């Protein structure tokens, strides 16, 4: 792959990556496994980009690779719970493709919404969504009451959802 092809690949990948990640997360129900699968899909797609047919949807192509990677992952991780019904897989894949553009824009908008939060609010989100801490663990670490943590998370989720939705509406996506 020369520099020109690489740039072409990256441009497409940046648009499709969120859809791939959303599909993988919806299938696996495990954010860490999703990270691994997305990494593997990206590397495989880059390696075989020369075989990609530009007349087809790039998102559809990488979702196909993701389908195989998820199957590999599930084979290796059994008996971990995952969505394996053929019908559910088909619906999730189709929805991922339909919503690919919106999913990508949502990611871009979220960066700005998160950047404007107070640091302690980001810390709360980071603990819950990135570190996977329970409400009780957050309560201990941040010296907040359990109900205060729950209420704060609920309000943050709603505020972020509203912030992102407004951005998507402005771009005619919602």
């Amino acid at each position: 792959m020369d520099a020109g092809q690489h740039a072409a690949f990256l441009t497409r990948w940046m648009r499709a990556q969120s859809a791939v990640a959303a599909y993988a997360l919806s299938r696996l129900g495990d954010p860490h496994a999703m990270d691994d699968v997305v990494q593997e899909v990206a590397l495989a797609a880059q390696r075989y980009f020369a075989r990609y047919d530009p007349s087809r949807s790039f998102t559809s192509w990488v979702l196909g690779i993701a389908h195989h990677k998820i199957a590999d992952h599930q084979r290796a991780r059994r008996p971990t719970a995952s969505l394996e019904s053929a019908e559910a897989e088909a619906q999730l894949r189709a929805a991922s493709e339909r919503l690919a553009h919106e999913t990508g824009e949502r990611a871009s908008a979220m960066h700005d919404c998160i950047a404007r939060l107070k640091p302690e609010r980001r810390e709360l989100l980071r603990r819950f969504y990135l570190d996977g801490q329970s409400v009780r663990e957050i309560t201990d670490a941040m010296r907040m009451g359990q109900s205060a943590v729950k209420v704060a998370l609920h309000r943050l989720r709603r505020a972020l959802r509203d912030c992102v939705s407004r951005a998507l509406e402005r771009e005619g996506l919602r």
Partner: protein
Amino acid sequence: MRRDDPRIEAWLTGRLPPGELPALQQALADPALAEAVIRAAGEQIALRAALRGQDCLAELPSPRPDETGRRTRGTRTRRRVRRTGRGPVWAALAAAACLLAALAVWQLRPGPTPSPGAGEEVRSQHEPPASRQPWRVLASGSGVRVGGDALAADALVSAGSRISADVPTQLRLAHRTEPIELELSGPFELALAGPATVACQRGTLRAKVGPRTRAAPFSVITPHARCTVLGTRFAVTIAADATRVSVSEGTVAFARRDGDGEFAAPQELTAGMRADSAEAPSPVALLAYPLHRGPGSLDGTGRLSRILPLTLRRQPEWTDAGLLLDGRNHCVTRTNASWPELRAALVASRAVTLSVKVANRGPPSENLLLGVLYIRKNTEGARRLVSVRMDDGEPGVWVRWSVTVAPDGTMRTYRDGELQRASRIEDWPSQPGDPSVQLKLLMPLGHHGEPDEDLAVEFADVQLFDRVLTPDELRRLDP
């Protein structure tokens, strides 16, 4: 199930009780609910990426300038590059390129910037957000440049920027929202690949990193290695042919790049330890047959009679598909129905090294078959034979034959660590894990795999690795 059912978020954050999964699976037959799940998953992805300060969800290697020519020039190009001591040239490293592309896409994105939700405080509007310019210059010596311009103290620097100095000088940077401080010295070249990733081509980098989560470590990528830290103080020196790391405090995971630029399994360094990318540790075989040297290793029917049992050097796990050696794509079958059972069938992944010691004990034999790569797509099969002629060695002299196959399909054969020949396998699986592809590395023995009563050969120390060993590593298999 409603579209805002809390079980959806519980599933996507790994908090759904297993007993609830069947109901969710059944409900997903409804396209509207599938859309709701994908939207919720998109929110989770966006949230995680934003919290990590990531624009790019995967780490991607940049193209190698010699890649096009490498296909036609073959191994000579590779060897020339190695002799110069520069290794594979990772001119614009992984995430740096990815972030540049992300920024390009960002610039094309129409529409105004969204505002935060009601009730949430807005940070200073006087400076660009840290998500776009996450680094601040604390001190900058003369000669430090970014994009051709001199870099002054207190300047903000964007993710994806490349900072360099051609003269001995110093630079200190601090992350605006994360507890990360970097100090560069000497002529250096640094790409700020992202809030949690920097790529350093040369120079010495000292880093002080506050506590981080395992989900978002801080990484330094060099042409020879990658250091991943969760909070520590350490120094990285990038020379022309190697990267050296010394740890002052905490723990650093140090992963060397192999000859193909892939990262090897990381080595954990703690305070006081040092590592050098040029001094790779001994490789660990996926499996190895016990060392056995003696007549009768190969019987009159061309079968290895004493090669079993296997000595597995990793914890194995039996599955329906065979013997699973790790969670990725390496497995070994017990038998192969399409070949005589004693031709111990080895199913490998996309990168493999098979190494064995052989000694001729009889008259010169032709085409002792050491390995076969058998690629089958659907009903069509293709074989690649790796044959080793035994008529050019001294009787009774042990020779180590090794075959490596790189992920790009390049197959090389070595005798005592010296390259004998190389070729490409065009049918190498296009998509790893493609169920229509069977890839097997077999070890049939004898004349073209057929029993050869004249064959009298001893075997020893058969080893299989799940990566491509370098010639040096192959030589080191024999102390």
